[in-house]
Every structure is written in structure tokens, then in C-alpha cells.
């Protein structure tokens, strides 16, 4: 005879919830709970530590001694520009081909070294930029943007590429029979269809660019107001003034959370179009 466990208790509330969602019980299987809890603890404990150790009483004082505003401003606008650049050149790339995601697995510092080798004043390309146009890229905000783009763009590319691959070609065919040429089809059918993924990819890209450290410090250095982004400011503050580092980290955390929360409803929900 088949063994059966005793019927479980199902309150009216739980019944209603399950009926609304449909299907059988979707609660987490017990054996998965332990590792899941460890992972949650690992992810949350550092944040908790940050909140507990924060110099709540003299926050203003802790921030004032640093270049917080400067660093934050720099971080915000460079991350935004690099997301913009990724959108402009990354989406067509995802469309044309589905690779060049190497920076995704490349350590950011290596990316910084690679950028330096290519664009420094004696680099492969940088030499000519300097010679012909007198343009020096390293250790400028432009270098920050390039470093952030290099590291963050692949996140946008893989999101968009996945969406393009799974998009229903039927709509593009329909558009063609309605007289739409290739570019019109892309603009008026393909892009709207993948818009949710495009948004999600842009947010992911922006968040990654905002937190970029390794490639930036290698390729762009850390001149306050020029190339010292928030993560770099946090890093240096930690050596000289731990309280300031914590305060800066909190600001960065706040910005990230704000962005994700504000965009969540628009972009990240299911990716359905209706």
C-alpha cells in the first residue's frame, strides 16, 4: 500500500491565496530551507553590520569631511552616461550578434589594465588619439565612463539578446506584410516587444556601472571631482575615516535601493506586455 502523509491543514486564507494563484502547493521544500537561509544571512549580515555601525548621531559630520557630494555626483552622472552609451551601441550589438560578453567574466581590474593598454598615451589606439587630436583619455571622467561601460554593458547585452531570441517572430512578419521595412520593423515592433527586458537590462547596467571599482581605479585613477567615484571614495575613506566610509556606503545603498524600487513596477515585473 502506498504511504501517505496526513492531510495538511489549509486555512480559509491559505485556500483563497492558493486558489488565486492556481496549482498545487508551491511552498519551499524543507531540505532547501537551510542553504537558502545561509545565503540570505550571508547577503543580509554585511548590510546589517553597515546599518548597526553607522554613526547615526553625527552623520552630517562624518560626511562633511569627505568629498561625498562630489563623488556621488560623479558616480551618478558617469553611471548614467555609460548606461546611455550601452543602450546606443549595446542594443544594436545584441541585435547583430550574441557574443562579446567576455567582460562579464573578466575581472574588472583586468578590464582596466586592458583599457589602459589600448587607450593610454602610449597605448594601441591612445597613442594616435594623443598624436592626432591631443586627446588623453586615462584619468579623466571620460575614462570613468569607458571603464564603467566596458564592465556594465554586457549585462545589458545578455538581457536584451535573450529577449530578442525569445521574441515572437510572427509580429515582425506581420509588420512586414503591413508594409514596414526592416528599420521600421525594428523601431515599431521589435523594440516595443522587448521594452520590458530593455528596461530591466538598463537598470542592471546602471547599477553595475554605479558600483564599478576595479576597472575604474585602474584606468581612471582617483582624482577627487574628476575620477573618484563613490565606490573609490568609500574605499579611501575606510583607510582614513571608517565612519565616513560607512556613511558614504549608506548613501550609495540608498541610491541603489531608490532606483530599483522606483523602476521595479515599471520594468522588472514579469516582463509581460498588456
Amino acid at each position: 500500500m502506498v504511504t501517505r502523509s496526513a492531510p495538511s491543514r489549509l486555512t480559509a486564507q491559505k485556500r483563497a491565496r492558493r486558489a488565486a494563484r492556481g496549482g498545487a502547493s508551491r511552498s519551499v521544500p524543507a531540505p532547501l530551507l537551510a542553504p537558502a537561509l545561509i545565503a540570505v544571512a550571508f547577503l543580509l549580515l554585511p548590510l546589517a553590520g553597515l546599518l548597526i555601525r553607522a554613526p547615526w548621531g553625527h552623520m552630517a559630520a562624518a560626511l562633511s569631511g569627505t568629498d561625498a557630494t562630489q563623488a556621488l555626483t560623479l558616480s551618478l552622472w558617469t553611471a548614467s552616461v555609460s548606461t546611455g552609451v550601452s543602450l546606443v551601441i549595446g542594443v544594436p550589438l545584441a541585435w547583430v550578434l550574441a557574443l562579446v560578453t567576455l567582460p562579464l567574466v573578466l575581472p574588472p581590474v583586468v578590464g582596466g589594465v586592458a583599457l589602459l593598454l589600448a587607450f593610454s598615451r602610449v597605448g594601441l589606439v591612445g597613442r594616435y588619439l594623443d598624436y592626432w587630436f591631443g586627446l588623453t583619455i586615462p584619468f579623466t571622467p571620460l575614462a570613468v565612463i569607458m571603464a564603467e561601460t566596458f564592465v556594465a554593458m554586457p549585462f545589458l547585452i545578455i538581457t536584451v539578446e535573450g529577449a530578442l531570441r525569445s521574441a515572437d517572430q510572427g509580429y515582425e512578419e506581420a509588420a512586414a506584410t503591413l508594409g514596414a521595412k526592416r528599420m521600421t520593423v525594428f523601431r515599431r515592433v521589435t523594440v516595443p516587444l522587448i521594452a520590458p527586458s530593455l528596461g530591466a537590462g538598463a537598470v542592471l547596467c546602471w547599477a553595475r556601472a554605479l558600483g564599478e571599482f576595479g576597472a575604474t581605479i585602474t584606468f581612471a585613477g582617483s582624482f577627487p571631482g574628476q575620477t573618484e567615484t563613490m565606490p573609490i571614495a568609500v574605499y579611501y575613506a575606510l583607510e582614513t575615516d571608517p565612519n565616513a566610509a560607512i556613511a558614504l556606503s549608506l548613501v550609495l545603498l540608498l541610491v541603489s535601493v531608490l532606483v530599483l524600487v522606483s523602476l521595479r513596477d515599471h520594468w522588472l515585473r514579469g516582463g509581460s506586455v498588456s
Partner: protein
Amino acid sequence: MTGTGSDGLVVDAEVRRGEFTLTVALAARSGQVVGLLGPNGAGKSTLLSAVAGLTPVSSGRITLEGEVMDDADAGTFVEASERPVGFVFQNYRLFPYLTVAENVAFSPRARGMGKRAARAAAGYWLDRLGLAGLADRKPGQLSGGQAQRVALARALAGQPALLLLDEPLSALDAGTRLDVQAELKRHLADFTGPCLLVTHDPLEALVLADQLIVLESGRIVQEGSPAQVARQPATDYVAKLVGLNLYYGQADGSRVTLTAGGSFVVPDQGQHGEVLAAVRPSAIVVSTRRPDSGSARNTWPAKVTGLTLLSDRVRLDLDGQPPALVDVTPAAVAELSLSPGSQVWLSVKATELEVYTRGAQLHQPIITSPAPAGDGEPGSPGVQR
């Protein structure tokens, strides 16, 4: 009459897709609705796809209003976006992120009309198809019948010279299908160009089409008027669709020797050689004792192998020489106490047998090589009607 190639759609082409080859020669005149009937995988959708320019032909050519759309030999190909073709897809493929009005305005916009003019054009078609009240809805908020009309409006708004409909009613439930079908028939009557309508529903084909083409395994197996196809099916598939018994045999005057066994006495029309004989399931009489066989009556023994209730009658599946499907009343089933395994006698009057040759159903095959035919005009593949 020989197709002149200057009027309507003329297809004389082959489309190869992996192992599958579609070979088709057909013509559709302006104002004519040609129904493409066939089982799944017969190549109906491939044919529409080729005509719309979504799939290039492998050999042969497609012309519309005398203009070459696709010519494999000459290497000419008009892109889908440049063809004056309206396509209503099986699941409509309405853009989910656009409103009904924007969907209908899509084609005028894409074909270069200004925003305001396109909106006006869309408004005209929405009015015409009774959709004005739904202009601001999204496709997700439409019923099946409404979505079907929006798809038709969207296709017509591009002012196509040719309309293609791929199973336009298959996504609808049975309740709304008849209404939408009647409506579609009205709108198709208003359309002045040729129209190709793919379906696997024989009733839909009989109601909507002026001319039927039956495709099986990538080939045309029969074409003719709906009445003709329904009366003289050329293949088992068509016979099953229209609900007839179909027998293949050799005729010799008034006697036809059947391939499936047995023979029939038929009215002598001087037939000799290979013929087809069709008979309605209700024309065959079932009895438990051997009936008196007159000279004009065929009788043979058979065994009941299955019974199916079809609304007001029962369809018997009978094994004999030849086998047959026979319709009787439920009362007759009770009176004769029929059940699987029952031995019965079947009889059918010679005059109930429709005897014809297969060649009459199918036009002479048209070779895709540019062999001059009919009046020999270069654009004419010489389709005989």
C-alpha cells in the same frame, strides 16, 4: 479560358523547405475567393507565406496584377513590405502594445502616410467593420470575434490588391464562429481583389470560397467549384471531409471492378479504365436479410465494425467488399439490433453512384519551366479553367 496573367494572382512555382516540396499552379481572379483546403502539413501556410513574400519560391514565379512578385529564374524578388498584400494571420498577430486604432493605422503609417492621414484611414476602416467603439482598446481586451475583425481591418487599411487569410476562424469558439463567418463573407464580398483563404474546415471552405483548391502533401489534388468538389471528391481526404464513400476502380461500361474488392453496377455512360465512384452514406440501405437484387441494384454482405452517433443518425462502419460508411436512424439500429460484429446486407441503387474519372477533377499539371502554353504570353503559365 486561359489566364492572361494581367488580372489577379498567378502562382506557378515550387517552394522547397528541407524535405518538403510544395508544387502549385493556381490563378485567382479579382473578386474571387479561392479556398485552400487540406490537412495539416499540406503546404497551405507555406503557399500563403510565398505569396506574401515571407518565403521566396525555389523555382517558378508569382505574379500579381501582371507584375512579377517573385521569379526564381530571373532572380526577381519583391520584399514582403513592398507587396500590395494584406495578410490576416491565424492568431491575428495584433501588436499587443498598440491600441486597436494604432494597429489599424500601422500599415498606412508604414507605407508612408502622415500621422493624421493614417489615423483618418484607420478611422474609416474601424467604422466600416463596426469597430469604432473599440478604437482605444488593447488587443488583450478584445473578444475573439472582435480581434478577428481588427486583424481584417488592419490588413485592409493597407489597401492591398490581394488578401490572404490563414484559418481566419480557427481561433474562435464554436458559438461565435458562425456569426463571424457570415460577417467575414460580407466583407470578402466587398473586397475587389483576389483572395486566398486557407482552411481545414470544409464547411468554412464551402461557405466562403467561390473556388476550391485541395492540397495534399505539397500538391494540388483537386480543384473546382465547392459544389463540384463536394459531389466528386478526388481523394480519400476530400471524400472524408465531405462525408462520402469513395471507391477506386476499373470501369467497363456498366460495371466497375473496385480496387477495395467487389464490383458495382453503374449507369452505363460508356466509361472505360480508371474511375472513381462516390456514394452518400445515407444512400446505402442496411438489411439483415439478403434483399432482392434487381439489375440496377448492388447488394453485398458486410460486418458492422463500429457505430457512432451523429446528432440524429448513427454512422455504421462496415467491413465488406467493399467496406462502407452507412448512415441509418437510431430506430433502425434498434429494429435490426445492430452491434459490432453483426452480419448485414448492404444495397445501393446504381443511380446513387456518382462515377467520374479523376482527370476531370484536376487540371493538367502545369510545368514550372517556361513552356509556352495557351496563348503563349510570357507572363502566362496557361492555367486552364
